[in-house]
């Protein structure tokens, strides 16, 4: 694809470097921007530039933030003693979206995977332990993927957190809501049976989220 302008070429390349965007989509975006008001596009560009320059990561939990402390950590109504440990900000947002969790978070920035060159030192583990040592955390809920890498991270963290008096739990794994059992994969179903719960305990979100 030969473009008539070097400037367009640069812009297409910039858009195409984003995840999920190919050159054709990038070109469509660029042509669209060319039709817009210059002031509109200035705002668009400024938003991108300011995003990277001015974003801060929360001193406490490493969530993205406008200030030194993020809006979740700064919110006095949220349960201070409960910390949900997530792999990345995307997972944090997914849990926030539920509206059912009222504690705080800690964003690790990945899970332990020596194959990919990610050891405990590359993750936000020291900062989590600092929070625990400061006596801030009563319970840590591990909300990481159910893989060997995720499980290793949980094992590693629980061995560090429990001596500091932190109760460690993991999110439940099993059959999703509204699904037919026959379509659940065998492994999930087998685990769901193995880790079944007494019916009287399987109550709604009010009681499972103190």
């Amino acid at each position: 694809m030969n473009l008539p302008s070097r400037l367009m070429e640069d812009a297409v390349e910039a858009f195409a470097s984003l995840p999920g965007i190919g050159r054709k989509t990038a070109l469509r975006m660029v042509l669209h921007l060319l039709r817009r008001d210059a002031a509109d596009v200035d705002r668009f560009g400024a938003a991108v530039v300011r995003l990277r320059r001015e974003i801060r990561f929360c001193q406490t939990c490493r969530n993205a933030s406008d200030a030194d402390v993020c809006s979740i950590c700064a919110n006095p109504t949220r349960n201070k003693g409960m910390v949900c440990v997530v792999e990345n900000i995307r997972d944090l947002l997914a849990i926030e979206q539920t509206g059912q969790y009222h504690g705080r978070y800690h964003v690790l920035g990945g899970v332990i995977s020596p194959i990919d060159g990610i050891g405990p030192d590359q993750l936000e583990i020291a900062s989590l332990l600092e929070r625990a040592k400061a006596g801030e955390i009563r319970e840590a809920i591990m909300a990481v993927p159910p893989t060997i890498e995720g499980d290793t991270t949980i094992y590693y963290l629980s061995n560090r957190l429990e001596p500091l008096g932190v109760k460690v739990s993991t999110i439940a794994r099993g059959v999703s809501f509204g699904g037919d059992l026959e379509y659940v994969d065998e492994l999930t179903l087998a685990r769901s049976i193995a880790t079944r719960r007494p019916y009287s305990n399987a109550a709604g979100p009010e009681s499972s989220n103190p």
Partner: protein
Amino acid sequence: MRIHRLSLYQYKNYEAADVHFETAFTCLTGPNGAGKTNLLDAVYYCSFCRSARHSVEDQNLMHGRDGFRIHGRFEHQGHPLEVEVRYRRGGTKEVLCSGERYTRLADHIGRLPLVLTGPEDMALVDGYSEERRRFLDSALSTVDRSYLDALLRYNRALAQRNAALRRYREGQPADPLLLDSYSEHMQTSGALIQALRAQFLAELLPLFAECYRLISRQAESPGLDWVASFPSDGDLVALHRRDRQRDIGAGRTGSGPHRDDLALLLDGHPAKLLGSQGQKKTLLYALRLAQWLWLGGKLGSPPLLLLDDVFDKLDRARVESLFSLLASHSAAQVLISDTNLNRVEEVFRSIGVACQSIAVEPGRIVAPA
């Protein structure tokens, strides 16, 4: 498991071929290099979504062509099953089962149970321990999803632990807690793997001994000895802790179920070292037949059995015993290959069993011989 028909298009040395299987025993005969093994390989492909001989798909393609197709009509426990494999050079392969395309080929494994033994299979007796672990893993994975799951988890934890060990060898400070966490995973899944392996071998041993006795008609008694690198009730975590420095030096994990081996014995002595060629070949057939019988028992009907170049391995008397044993299983279907038509026909005549002969000439199937 039965196969009724197999069609090939541009697979290996076949431009196009169409074979009907009519009886419980089918023998493919023809000169060396005619394509008997390739035909059996195509049947194998329908079961395992890959060739038993060539892992690079382009090597399965007829020379100078752009794609191949394998189509097999099977019957499994009374239900018809059609498998189609399509491959285009440089593209991906597609496997369809009764018209439905798999998104994950792993979902197909186990749907068409099959046991193959051929000239390259002697590695099971003579080769490295890896071959014998694969023998166990494949038999157990076919009938038990929890085994396959434990095995995948174990192998992933092992790969991660080895990656960490290599980093420590290169000078990164070792993190004992991280190594322990992999050892814990390996202990948990490894205990299940070892328990199921032990149970499998206990069930396999009588079948194996019986098959050996029937084929060889000799007095020597065969045995299977599982050489575990740690006791199944043992503490793998403690063992890994003890050997930590050695593991770091080597850059890999020295103990665990991935180091287990299966020793084949004759009168209590390792056959790999002391057995004669004839004894080893008999052991191989006894082991594959025992696997076939075991799978048949677990699955409710015997898997398809492919015996490539069977006379290369066994003398006439042993082949007769083997075929008589197979013929005693009414639901069995066996595909055999040999270079000599007369030899096969004589064997079947002398044991009084019907056998369909198919003559294979280089690259084509000649009408029933």
